[in-house]
């Protein structure tokens, strides 16, 4: 199956700082998603980004599928950005697209 590795595992930022989270994956698949898990446990869709770059407010993501990595950028971080960030990729099995998740990056933004 697909191997997904995220780095760093933990990150502590001062409010207002910028950060880059990385996701490496083993296969050249083009269906990567980024999620934010908030302190209540909810998984929030951030980006579906098979390739290229997308931006949404202070967040942006870039995926280079041929080199098997994706980056999530958080600019001007706020305390509400705290939580765990997961990347995930779909494995196309027989009649299914189940996701394989990385272990996540736990982000703590302190005031």
């Amino acid at each position, binding site marked *: 199956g697909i191997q997904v590795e995220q780095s760093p595992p933990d990150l502590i930022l001062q409010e207002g700082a910028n950060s880059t989270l990385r996701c490496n994956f083993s296969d050249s698949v083009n*269906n990567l*998603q980024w*999620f934010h898990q908030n302190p209540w*446990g*909810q*998984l929030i*869709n951030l980006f*579906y980004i098979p390739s290229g770059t997308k931006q949404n407010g202070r967040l942006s993501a870039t995926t280079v599928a041929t080199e098997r990595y994706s980056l999530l950028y958080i600019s001007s971080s706020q305390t509400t950005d705290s939580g765990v960030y*997961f990347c*995930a990729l*779909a494995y*196309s*099995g*027989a*009649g*299914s*697209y*189940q*996701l*394989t*998740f*990385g*272990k*996540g990056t736990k982000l703590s933004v302190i005031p």
Partner: protein
Amino acid sequence: EPEVTQTPSHQVTQMGQEVILRCVPISNHLYFYWYRQILGQKVEFLVSFYNNEISEKSEIFDDQFSVERPDGSNFTLKIRSTKLEDSAMYFCASSEYERHSFGEGSRLTVL
């Protein structure tokens, strides 16, 4: 924007009891999934459902678990004879193809 809805948001049960978790996927989606996240760990695939039958399942999804689409809108996960180690957050998801939409999760606590 359409959403995946899950009920209950939190359930507490005694060991050995049966639990049913319910989900309403997005109406035009073809693929339905259940995932599990034990506290502090990554999200793991349990089962996928397509064309009214299980299409893929992980080794976690043993005879204790079953899924059903009892009508045109609901998708359920049944856990028989719950064990302490079944305590986790259970996420339902649906997709048209690779891009998943997740529900807010059902937190199961087995005492």
